[in-house]
């Protein structure tokens, strides 16, 4: 792929613009809360788009297009099943506690609801994971640019990290959120034409269906048994593992996304944020997954497009998106497409950095290292942690070039840590009896359960550290079952330990737990602004989409 001056012009225009937003946001910052939490001041349409954009990193865009070519429309379950129901749940049922507790972060909510050690566990694991995740995606992007454009890995990693650093350092969370909105629009407008062009070339959805196995164009029909579909999963593990444990564990507890909803102006807008975000989220498969499916059809109809090959044989699915762009975008639009890819990378990275600096400053530094300093001090620490967070991410990216296996290993461990989280939050928010000792023990037991499941089972040669009691048809099925086991163990252990330990007095649980929290009134809102009616609309559209691609 070769770029022309016009493509670079577009990329530079975008860079100037993101830095400009950072500069604009800088004027508003005088306290640590302005910098780290936007102090509940952001309009709802902005928090909603930021809510999904912060999660829409480059790895996600590239990976979803790759999975489209590999698994077909079943990939859409990562959105329809693996995100939207959880977004509805967090908006309707959980935001009242997150927002109403006046916590500044998710770990701080755990401190208020449970105790110091549960907060510490969540804050430290979260801080470590965000830094590594952003480093891993930086590594993936650097590799791709090196491969496709011949750019130097070092330079592209350093340049993109520097730009993210400058705008998050200047304007903090507000700057990151405002840029995420622009990045979201760029991702949509930069990739939608690719989807349209590829589908048109393949003869529309009917043309695609005619050139592919039926399993690639149906999302539910082949889920009866793992051997019937390329993912190697059946309906139960998909619904319970992806649709419940993993999805709710991420969208309802991960501070990276919750932080965006917490920045909204009012309780109503905080609750509306994930609900409004669910509408564009449901449609994302048509922009990021469908091109991958069309790519496979185009190859089968010998249209002049072939899937890229790996040097060692087999298809290199991660290059599907970029090779499609090279075939369908002329210079000019190619610049817009690459800028969209760069934007998705930056939104993902800035999301990680802004969540990291908040958790570190409030939940680690202010709690354990130096409490009771004047606010100016914490603003300074927040800014310093922005630089350190970016620095650590860059370090991780370079480390990944030497130890690729360590990165896979880390992502595996992160999965073990995240899988039980939702059980803790569910019990904590809806059962007054749940205690801090129980939450902590449950999380540790859940993670241990995940580790044990991995050690006792094998899939595609992965796992089986202790012995092999069960063989899964695919690593995806194994991941789903690890999550299910971890969740069930955490749930049971938390309940049992709660029954034998002393609960917090009810007076201390006000605004933290269901039953002792003022339910936010929906009066004064128009019918379409009410969280419950928004939720209903989301569900109707979601069911319609699933029926359409049954």
């Amino acid at each position, binding site marked *: 792929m070769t770029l*022309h001056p*016009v493509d670079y*012009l*577009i990329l530079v*225009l*975008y860079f100037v*613009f993101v830095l*400009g*937003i950072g500069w*604009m*946001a800088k*004027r*508003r910052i005088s306290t640590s809360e302005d910098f780290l939490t936007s102090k509940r001041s952001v309009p709802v349409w*902005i928090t909603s788009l930021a809510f999904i954009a912060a999660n829409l990193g480059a790895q996600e865009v590239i990976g979803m297009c790759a999975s489209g070519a590999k698994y077909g429309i079943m990939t859409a379950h990562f959105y329809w099943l693996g995100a939207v129901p959880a977004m509805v749940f967090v908006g309707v049922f959980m935001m009242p506690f997150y927002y109403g507790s006046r916590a500044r972060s998710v770990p701080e909510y755990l401190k208020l609801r449970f105790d110091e050690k549960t907060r510490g566990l969540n804050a430290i694991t979260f801080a470590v994971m965000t830094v590594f995740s952003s480093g891993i995606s930086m590594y993936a992007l650097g590799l791709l640019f090196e491969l496709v454009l011949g750019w130097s890995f070092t330079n592209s990693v350093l340049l993109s990290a520097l730009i993210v650093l400058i705008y998050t350092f200047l304007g903090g969370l*507000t700057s990151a959120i*405002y840029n995420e*909105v*622009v990045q979201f*629009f760029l991702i949509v*407008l930069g990739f939608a*034409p690719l989807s349209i*062009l590829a589908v*048109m*070339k393949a003869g529309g959805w009917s043309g695609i269906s005619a050139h592919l196995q039926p399993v690639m164009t149906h999302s539910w029909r082949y889920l009866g048994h793992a051997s019937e579909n390329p993912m190697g999963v059946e309906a139960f593990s998909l619904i319970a593992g992806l649709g419940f444990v993993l999805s709710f564990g991420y969208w309802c507890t991960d501070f990276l996304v919750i932080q965006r909803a917490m920045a909204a102006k009012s309780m109503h807008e905080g609750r509306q944020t994930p609900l409004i975000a669910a509408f564009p989220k449901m449609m994302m498969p048509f922009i990021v997954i469908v091109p991958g499916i069309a790519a496979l059809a185009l190859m089968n109809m010998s*249209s*002049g*497009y072939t899937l890229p090959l790996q040097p060692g044989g087999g298809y290199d699915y991660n290059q599907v998106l970029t090779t499609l762009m*090279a*075939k*369908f*975008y*002329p*210079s*000019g*639009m*190619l610049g*817009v497409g690459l800028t969209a890819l760069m934007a998705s990378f930056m939104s993902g990275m800035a999301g990680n950095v802004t969540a990291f600096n908040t958790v570190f400053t409030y939940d680690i530094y202010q709690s354990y290292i130096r409490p009771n300093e004047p606010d100016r001090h914490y603003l300074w620490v927040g800014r310093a942690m922005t630089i350190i967070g970016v620095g650590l991410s860059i370090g991780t990216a370079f480390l990944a070039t030497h130890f690729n296996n360590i990165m896979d290993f880390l992502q595996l461990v992160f999965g073990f840590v995240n899988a039980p989280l939702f059980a803790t939050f569910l019990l904590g928010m809806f059962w007054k009896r749940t205690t801090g000792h129980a939450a902590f023990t449950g999380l540790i037991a859940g993670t241990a359960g995940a580790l044990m499941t991995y050690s006792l089972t094998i899939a595609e040669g992965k796992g089986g550290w202790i012995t092999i009691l069960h063989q899964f048809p695919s690593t995806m099925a194994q991941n789903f079952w690890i999550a299910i086991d971890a969740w069930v163990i955490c749930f049971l252990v938390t309940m049992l330990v709660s029954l034998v330990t002393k609960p917090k007095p009810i007076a201390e649980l006000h605004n933290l737990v269901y039953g002792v929290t003022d339910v936010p009134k929906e009066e004064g809102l128009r019918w379409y602004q009410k969280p419950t009616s928004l939720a209903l609309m989301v569900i109707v559209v979601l069911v319609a989409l699933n029926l359409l691609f049954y």
Partner: protein
Amino acid sequence: MSDLRVPTGILFALLGVVLLAYTAISPGARAPLDANINVNLWSGIALLLFGGCLLWLSRRTRS
């Protein structure tokens, strides 16, 4: 902070103008599989319209 729609509208309108200007200068810039669609022209129009919409919306609410 001032209305985000203004700078965003300006960015997208500018991107549209760049694509349209580029089509005018080099109409031969085509991709291998574009099926006789002038991608830069249509995308340029879409981007310009989107940017224009954002600017129009922000003017309307201000007045």
